[in-house]
Each structure stands twice: as structure tokens, then as C-alpha cells.
């Protein structure tokens, strides 16, 4: 049964409440709209509701979905009467069950306001004098409550006051489309400030789930959400921060296969990733599709920022500085070498600022240069790149083509794991012992070892056919990439990883 419905039968609130009840909920809020005996100073004795049923149903579901997202509640329901009603009947019922009362009240209020405002449902009142009148449900709500429930609109006055923004700038922000790749230490401030500024459409790409070790630097998330997909958690938070922003959630890793179609749909790509593979991918695709990219990265107390504006004479793609793909693991990531939360916080804020400047066409933007920020000593330096090193990107394109060819074309395979042995593959399980115990590989001979152990062993014979397996296909893909880079041509990664059960579709 869908959570929103129209009903010709009387509404029994106690029965309705059952569909949202749950043992994970500590609070329940409901609203009942009743048929009263007067309207606008005239006595009425009954009324009729008529709905454009199809549209009311889809719009009702939309309202419920919005409430789920905005307030982080799952258990919502609404039923609206149609047909003839008597004074005292329940005309509409809304129920929300949630972990705590605050979001239950807020979501309940939101749903009834939106339902009354947006759904194509009309009310015909029968007055005691015998005449009738069609009343629009929303027009019917009295002025006091109408002003009270009026949704506050997003207010950008504190930024439109700037000469660099103004009404025109705000309109530019509203029509901008920005893709944020990575909702981690850099992505959190980027998403927050872009949404706060009223950037019209924001895409969020992240294939990871929240880990407790993220929280010291990724401060929009909650401890209770550990284990949940970050793209969706970020969208929920950003949606609450500014409901005007259109969010497009992509709970996946940016891969060579998905990058083109994703990046093509946006004007500016903000690289908030934590690995070189994705950064090079973003740069290469941005160059190919003529999209602006804003890069940042962090190492302990330091960070680097760079902006790529294709088409400009002095444009600087990532390869203009780092011509060939840098293997992941060459320098440390936050996971390995550590950082303090404010460091990606500040670097991400710089990225957000630079993105806003680009949209607003504001002065002082980074040109053909690398900005180095050292937060241990509070120094920052802009390293200029000589003009001949940037602009044409012929070498960059050549490097990109060469690397894409060897690296990505057939790296991932969807073969059935059971047949890997027959096809001559050594199957290597890269998972930890506890992961392997939880979901054992069966039906195929295999060995479990770490990437480092594998590297040592692989040196013995370069031509071995190896199939790498992990739980989601991320670690195995990175390891396969690394081995290919080191000159092992026959290493593959099982796409999507081993989820337990059979690999046969």
C-alpha cells in the first residue's frame, strides 16, 4: 500500500497510525483535519471533497518523499477523504513516526501544509440556507494560520549585498549546475557552502559508506549514520540546509565508464576525491568535454588547489602539472598519513569560494597556477606555471589516451567466479579475514592475501592470469590498476566484488 492515498471510506486515525508504527521510533506526531460547522461566518452542515485523483496521488507521494528527505524520517503516511463528509468527520490525516519528536513534528507540519497547498482537491460546502460553494482548500485556510505556516523562502540578502553578487549574481548561482565528486573532508564544506549560496543544481557523487573515522573532518554527518551511503546522507543534510537547491544524488564511484555521462551534465566539476586515479579521470574528461574543474587535495597540514578552465589560453589541467598518472599510494591519503579536520575544512572552503567566484565571474580567481596552503605555518604561495606549459594540452591528451588504453579498457570483468579456474585464472581474495569469514568464497579455488603479498609474489611471473576479488570491487580495481601499471598485463578485477551467494546472474 502506498503511503499516500485518497479514501472514500471514513478515516479511522487509530488504524492509520499502525502503518507508521515501528519499534525503532520514539516519537509519533499526527495531524487531523476535521469538518467544522462554519466557514467565513456562515453555518455549514456538510461538505464534499472532489479530487483529480491521479495527480493528487502522485503529488501526495512527492510531498511524502520530500518530507522523508528533508527531515530524515522514513515512516510517513497521509490519507485524504473524497466524497461526502459530515461535520466532525476526519477530512485528512497525517502521521509521522521518527526517532525523536522534533523531526516528527516538523515533518508532520510540512506534509499537511504542502498537501493543502499543492494537491488538486476541491471542497464544496453546503450551507444551512441550502446554497453551496466550491472552496479551494488552500484559499480556505484562514489568514492567520496561512501566514504562520507560510514557508520562509531562502534568504540570500547577506551575500546579494556584495557588489560581486547582487541580484544578477544570485540569478547566475541559481542557474548553475555543479558536480561535487566526493562527499568527504573536502566535499562536506564544498556541498555546504554551494548549497547555502543557492547554487541551483548540485550533483553529489560518492560510492562510500560513512565510517566512524570520517567524522573528525566530515562534520555534517552523525555517528548514528555510520554504515550508510554518504551520497544520500549528504543529500539529506544539504536538502535541509537549503530546500531550494535541486539535488542529484549519484551513490557510486566515478569510473571511466560513468564519468563522461555524469560530467557532461554539469558545468563545473569540483574534485573532492582522495585518490589520483579519480582526479586524473576528472581532468581528462573535463578536458575532453570542455568542463571547468576545481581541484583540491590535502596532506596532513597542507593542501593544494588548482582550477582548470578549458578553452582559455592559459588553462591548466591536472596533467599540465603532473603529466602522467600517479599511482595511488605514491603519497599518503588521509586514511594513512592522517590530517586534522579543519585542514580539509579550509581547503574545501577555498574550493567552494573559487567555485562561487567562477560562477559569479568575480575577480581574483586562480589562473595558471598551483595554490599551496600550509596551515601549520599559515603560509600560502601561488606557484605560477609558465604559459608554454599550459594551454594546448596536446601532450596531456596523448598521455590520457595512452593510459586509458592500457589501463581501463578491460580491467573489470563480470565473469562468473566459478568459471575463473577453468579459464586459467588464479583467484586472489583481497578481503580481510573477518570479511572472508562472513561471506566465504565458494565454488572456486582461491587464496587470500594482501596487495603487498600479492605484489611480492607476482614478481615471479609477469604473465600469470590473476582475478582479484574484494567485497565491493573497489579495492580489487585499485590493486589491478596498480599491478597493470607495474607491468602485469593479465590482472583483472571482479566488477562489483563478491557479495556472497552465486555470481551467476
Amino acid at each position, binding site marked *: 500500500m502506498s503511503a499516500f492515498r485518497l479514501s472514500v471510506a471514513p478515516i479511522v486515525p487509530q488504524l492509520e497510525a499502525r502503518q507508521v508504527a515501528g519499534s525503532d521510533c520514539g516519537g509519533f506526531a499526527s495531524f487531523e483535519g476535521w469538518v467544522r460547522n462554519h466557514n467565513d461566518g456562515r453555518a455549514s452542515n456538510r461538505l464534499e471533497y472532489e479530487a483529480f485523483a491521479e495527480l493528487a496521488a502522485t503529488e501526495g507521494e512527492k510531498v511524502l518523499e520530500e518530507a522523508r528527505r528533508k527531515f530524515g524520517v522514513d515512516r510517513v503516511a497521509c490519507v485524504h477523504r473524497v466524497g461526502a463528509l459530515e461535520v466532525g468527520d476526519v477530512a485528512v490525516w497525517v502521521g509521522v513516526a521518527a526517532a525523536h519528536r522534533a523531526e516528527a513534528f516538523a515533518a508532520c507540519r510540512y506534509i499537511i501544509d504542502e498537501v493543502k497547498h499543492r494537491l488538486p482537491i476541491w471542497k464544496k460546502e453546503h450551507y444551512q440556507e441550502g446554497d453551496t460553494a466550491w472552496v479551494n482548500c488552500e484559499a480556505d485556510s484562514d489568514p492567520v494560520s496561512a501566514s504562520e505556516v507560510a514557508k520562509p523562502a531562502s534568504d540570500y540578502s547577506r551575500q546579494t549585498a556584495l557588489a560581486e553578487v547582487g541580484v544578477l549574481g544570485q540569478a547566475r548561482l541559481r542557474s548553475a549546475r555543479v558536480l561535487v565528486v*566526493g562527499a568527504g573532508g*573536502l566535499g562536506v564544506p564544498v556541498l555546504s557552502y554551494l548549497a547555502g549560496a543557492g547554487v541551483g543544481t548540485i550533483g553529489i557523487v560518492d560510492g562510500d559508506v560513512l565510517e566512524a573515522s570520517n567524522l573528525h573532518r566530515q562534520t555534517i554527518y552523525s555517528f548514528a549514520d555510520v554504515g550508510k551511503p554518504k551520497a544520500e546522507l549528504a543529500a539529506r543534510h544539504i536538502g535541509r540546509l537549503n530546500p531550494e537547491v535541486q539535488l542529484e544524488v549519484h551513490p557510486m564511484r566515478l569510473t571511466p565508464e560513468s564519468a563522461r555521462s555524469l560530467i557532461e551534465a554539469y558545468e563545473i566539476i569540483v574534485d573532492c576525491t582522495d585518490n589520483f586515479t579519480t582526479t586524473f579521470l576528472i581532468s581528462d574528461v573535463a578536458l575532453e568535454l570542455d568542463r571547468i574543474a576545481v581541484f583540491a587535495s590535502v596532506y596532513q597540514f*597542507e593542501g593544494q588547489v588548482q582550477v582548470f578552465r578549458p578553452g582559455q589560453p592559459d588553462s591548466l589541467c591536472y596533467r599540465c602539472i603532473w603529466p602522467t598518472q600517479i599511482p595511488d599510494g*605514491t603519497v599518503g591519503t588521509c586514511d594513512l598519513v592522517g590530517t586534522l579536520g579543519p585542514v580539509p575544512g579550509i581547503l574545501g572552503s577555498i574550493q567552494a569560494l573559487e567555485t562561487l567566484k567562477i560562477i559569479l565571474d568575480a575577480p581574483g580567481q586562480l589562473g595558471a597556477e598551483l595554490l599551496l596552503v600550509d596551515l601549520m605555518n599559515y603560509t600560502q604561495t601561488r606557484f*605560477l606555471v609558465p604559459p608554454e606549459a599550459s594551454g594546448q594540452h596536446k601532450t596531456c591528451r596523448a598521455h590520457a589516451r595512452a593510459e586509458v588504453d592500457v589501463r581501463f579498457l578491460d580491467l573489470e570483468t563480470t565473469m562468473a567466479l566459478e568459471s575463473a579456474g577453468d579459464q586459467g585464472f588464479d583467484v586472489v581474495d583481497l578481503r580481510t579475514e573477518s570479511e572472508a569469514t562472513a561471506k566465504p568464497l565458494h565454488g572456486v579455488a582461491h587464496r587470500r592475501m594482501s596487495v603487498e603479498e600479492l605484489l611480492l609474489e607476482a614478481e615471479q611471473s609477469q604473465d600469470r592470469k590473476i582475478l582479484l576479488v574484494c567485497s565491493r570491487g573497489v579495492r580489487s580495481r585499485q590493486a589491478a590498476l596498480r599491478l597493470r601499471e607495474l607491468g602485469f598485463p593479465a590482472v583483472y578485477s571482479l566488477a562489483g566484488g563478491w557479495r556472497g551467494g552465486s555470481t551467476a546472474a
Partner: protein
Amino acid sequence: MPSPNKKILVSYFALFRERAGRSEETIQTHCETTADLYRELSERHALKLASDRVKVALNAEFTTWNARLRDGDHVVFIPPVAGG
């Protein structure tokens, strides 16, 4: 004839700072080019990154590995950074 002795200010970033154990140092050297200097310091501090993975800047502008050093130059070795 050996190249004259020069005084060079060297700054280290990211993992170079860690490996060198300092943010900057002033050194006396006979090195002629940025590549010579990187080789010398790479050995001294075990910087452990091939020069094709490193950018070198001379007086706040990126330069090449055959750029010549002069007395009083400020040289910065910049490794790539990926964290986020």
C-alpha cells in the same frame, strides 16, 4: 672548474617536509641545476620520489629540471597530494 658555492633557500612541502624533518633550510651548495640539487637533497633526506613525480619551483614559478641555480635563489620541491 667547480661551480661557485651558492646559498640556496629550500622549502619542503607535504611528505618532503616529513622526510626532511623541516619546512625549509638554507644550504650552501655547488649544484648547478635544480636536478643536481634534488639529487643531492634526495640523498641527504631520503626523499624517495622519482623526479618525474615531483615539481620544482624557482622563486615561486614552476621551472624545469635543467634550470640553473644562482646565489640567493629560493627552490621549492612539490610532491603531488591526493588526500581529501
